[in-house]
């Protein structure tokens, strides 16, 4: 059947397929980001943090008004 189609129609159908694929991708990414727990991505190298602070000459001091959550 494709051999009877005009060239423009073929391109149009190709664009539709690409658009549909993109849409599916975006929806899937959103679902994954909602389902995954937010803390998963956090992994901080504390030694590196301390090193960077001392390189910048920053001296820390205990703050007021905070509590341990867990």
């Amino acid at each position, binding site marked *: 059947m494709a051999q009877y189609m005009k060239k423009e129609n073929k391109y149009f159908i190709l664009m539709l397929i690409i658009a549909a694929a993109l849409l599916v991708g975006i929806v899937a990414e959103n679902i994954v980001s909602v389902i995954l727990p937010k803390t998963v991505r956090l992994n*901080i190298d504390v030694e590196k943090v301390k090193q960077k*602070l001392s390189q910048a*000459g920053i001296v*820390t001091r*205990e*703050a007021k008004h*905070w509590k*341990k*959550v*867990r």
Partner: protein
Amino acid sequence: MKIIECQLCKRKCNLIEGQRGDCRVRLHLDGKLQTLVYGNPCSVHIDPIEKKPLFHVLPATGAFSIATAGCNMHCKYCQNWQISQRPPEETHNYDLPPDRVVAETLKANCKSIAYTYSDPIIFYEYMYDTAEIAHKHNLLNLMITAGFIEEKPLLDLCPHIDAANVDLKGITEEYYQKMCSSELAPVLHAIETMKKNGVWVELTNLIIPTWNDSEKDIRTLCRWVKDTVGPDVPLHFSRFWPRHLLKNLPPTPVETMELAWNIAKSEGLHYAYVGNVPGHDGNSTFCPNDGKLLIKRIGYQILENHVVDGKCEFCKTEILGIWS
């Protein structure tokens, strides 16, 4: 994984070890919350107190003004974004512990210390300790803030703060959320709390074209001020100038500033001001009783002052503020 919660401002950041809060200057390290800016301001200036603006506090005196990097607000129009939206590693910082701030203030013959430019809430401990020492030397403490703070730290701080200018940026939650990624309700609560706890409060409302310049918004804001904290709380309307992320907007037309000034007066506010329009009548203070000119200002400069012992020189009406 241990998590601690910062309870200083309404963001209540939950932080794992090594993580910083939204303000960039408070860090969970070694199981504790640490401040990164104590004694290290990145901005130190002597300003006329009128620049804060505080028009009812020791007119024509200098305010020793300090700020550190960081902020817990993220306003699209921030005029100090070079320091407020940066961590302390990216600013040039001075070594100025609280006792030296006080010593420098006295040396410069200033009558007050202003915690300003970025939001001083995020350098709370530095401000608190400096303010305590300042009071022992009869200096006033001025907090220039957006008021986005939890009640408990604010109540602890109030006895050490004499005057505050709170930026009441708008009067809708939508505005606060879209313009500053923040909330209105805690700010209103902070204004009330300061007032109830003996802090002299003045308010600033920056009027931005198309964002918060409608007659309805301005009137609602004025009504809130009058009904909640009273008609004697000075309200400074400030003219917007394009900057930071809002360079696409024009400056606020002077007519809009005048509209706001007239609305405030018609709603019964005793002290409404027009800022960033030098030479405008709205720079000056008028007696709420006889309407006479009391303090004539052009920008930050004072040309005449007819407030004597906290009263109108002509009709003796009390003009609220800190005058001596």
